[in-house]
């Protein structure tokens, strides 16, 4: 690893890849960092060739484009650091990069592009910490990259289009799927469509999943969710309840299903921690998926020479990420005077118009599948909210009553968000909980604070520090 780079790109998902491709082979020294052992992020998971062939895996045109891009970037002049994480960012764009949990490098960047993507959002329920309760993302990754089922008897409860993608995969691969329970109402879906401009290609993809699920007679039910998972050393049964319009379970409507695995997920939230650490301004917008990084039209953040692209500027899926990868790359080319002004203006004008459409599409889904007040208020008091520190809802409620109405306050009083994951899992729910209990706005509530190391690291890595 070198001491200085023109550009450091953090995050090897779609937006990072697109930007890297455009910036490559132009004489810029570029470091491209990703935590995984492949390029492509969550959407372009590495599928071993042999597995892909036997799974009859046919990537759609967007994914095909992505896989080719990853290959191209791999063969370019860009230095790629896989299994690597940026764990700290300091003044003047100095970065600490940890490689393979073994070594730490000090690197200086002239320009940083954050493309740190998104993670899943959850709505806690009693028993969601039991082994066998998995995120929908984990199930999808296991099936697609390792060819392993999460369980034999599976049930899905949560919100969003992704539930159907995972359901489709489960049925195709021979699991018994006992139903998909969608938290939001079907009627809301129809009502909202008129407000936003739909993107038909995405709906066609959804239709393919739905057809497979309907034709295998798996029940799909709206305005229902799992309110409890039970079992001793792992999930054995789950309780599904009907919900009223406000999201409260209707008593007497509960049904029990025997399963060995329950999958849950409520959409996505942006990974804003690293840009936050760099001092980039954030904003809260429910329509964009909650807390996101504030950017200008050219995707520069509040700090000059730091750019953000992809899900961290608003949750809206792969097409927006591709679009923003292009915008960010063009802006960076201009920064290094590697593009004619006219070309830049023309490119950007087109891309910015396109971006507006993608944002609109994201807004439709983020509004439709948002977690409401009733959803939060109906969580059982004994439910663990912070999984790392085993903090229950009743502890948080008590603390809020005693005046700890900020994430930082809850960290001090009950250790919520203090553990290994650094509030990545419980954070978004805790913001919602404070919001409904106090009526404080999200801006006043703020986020959990960030500081290096941004993720837990082995002491061994620090021993091998290269300054």
């Amino acid at each position: 690893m070198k001491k200085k780079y023109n550009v450091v790109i953090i995050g090897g998902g779609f937006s990072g890849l697109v930007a890297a491709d455009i910036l490559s082979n132009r004489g810029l020294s570029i470091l491209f960092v990703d935590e995984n052992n492949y390029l492509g992020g969550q959407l372009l998971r590495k599928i071993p060739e042999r597995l892909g062939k036997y799974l009859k895996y046919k990537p759609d045109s967007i994914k095909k484009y992505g896989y080719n891009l990853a290959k191209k970037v791999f063969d370019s002049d860009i230095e790629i650091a896989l299994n690597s994480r940026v764990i700290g960012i300091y003044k003047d764009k100095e970065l600490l990069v940890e490689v393979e949990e073994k070594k730490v490098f000090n690197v200086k960047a002239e320009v940083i592009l954050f493309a740190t993507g998104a993670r899943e959002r959850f709505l806690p329920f009693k028993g969601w910490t039991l082994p066998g309760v998995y995120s929908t993302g984990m199930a999808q990754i296991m099936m697609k990259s390792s060819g392993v089922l999460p369980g034999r008897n599976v049930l899905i409860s949560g919100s969003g289009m992704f539930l159907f993608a995972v359901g489709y995969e489960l049925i195709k691969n021979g699991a018994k799927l006992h139903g998909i329970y969608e938290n939001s109402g079907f009627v809301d879906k129809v009502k909202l469509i008129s407000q936003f401009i739909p993107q038909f290609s995405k709906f066609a993809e959804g239709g393919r999943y739905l057809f497979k699920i309907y034709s295998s007679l798996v029940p799909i039910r709206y305005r229902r969710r799992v309110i409890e998972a039970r079992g001793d050393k792992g999930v054995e049964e789950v309780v599904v309840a009907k919900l009223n319009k406000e999201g409260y379970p209707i008593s007497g409507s509960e049904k029990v299903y025997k399963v060995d695995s329950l999958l849950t997920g409520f959409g996505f939230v942006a990974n804003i921690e690293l840009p936050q650490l760099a001092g980039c301004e954030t904003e809260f917008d429910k329509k964009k998926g909650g807390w996101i990084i504030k950017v200008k039209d050219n995707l520069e953040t509040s700090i000059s020479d730091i750019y953000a692209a992809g899900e961290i500027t608003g949750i809206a899926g792969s097409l927006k990420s591709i679009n923003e990868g292009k915008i960010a790359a063009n802006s960076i080319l201009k920064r290094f005077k590697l593009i004619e002004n006219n070309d830049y203006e023309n490119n950007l004008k087109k891309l910015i118009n396109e971006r507006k459409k993608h944002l609109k599409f994201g807004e439709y889904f983020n509004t439709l599948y948002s977690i409401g007040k009733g959803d939060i208020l109906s969580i059982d008091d004994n439910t663990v909210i912070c999984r790392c520190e085993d903090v229950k809802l009743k502890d948080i409620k008590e603390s809020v009553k005693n005046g700890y109405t900020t994430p930082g306050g809850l960290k001090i009083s009950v250790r919520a968000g203090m553990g290994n994951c650094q509030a990545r899992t419980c954070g978004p729910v805790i913001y919602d909980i404070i919001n409904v209990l106090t009526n404080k706005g999200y801006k006043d509530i703020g986020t959990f604070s960030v500081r290096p190391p941004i993720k837990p690291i082995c002491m061994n890595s620090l021993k091998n520090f290269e300054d």
Partner: protein
Amino acid sequence: MNDLRIKGIKRQEEVKIKVNGQEVIAYESETVLSVLIANGFKVFRKSAVENEYRGGFCGMGVCYDCLVTINGVPQLRSCMYYVKEGMEIETDEEKV
């Protein structure tokens, strides 16, 4: 044992690993998390405060629930590591 591997798939190269001292067959490109779940190891450890059973959860390196010991190094995320010939994995079901 009820193997959760999807049927009818031609796998990558076979590798032999050990889980809690017991020999387990795995295939290249499988994560430690997938191998454990495929072979019926659902419980990986106990939680820090309440001593509750825990296993994998997010599957993408965010939640730190799937921590195991790999080749003697404790507290590694099983979802972020790929199996290799001779790898020794320890789950931590009883210890706190």
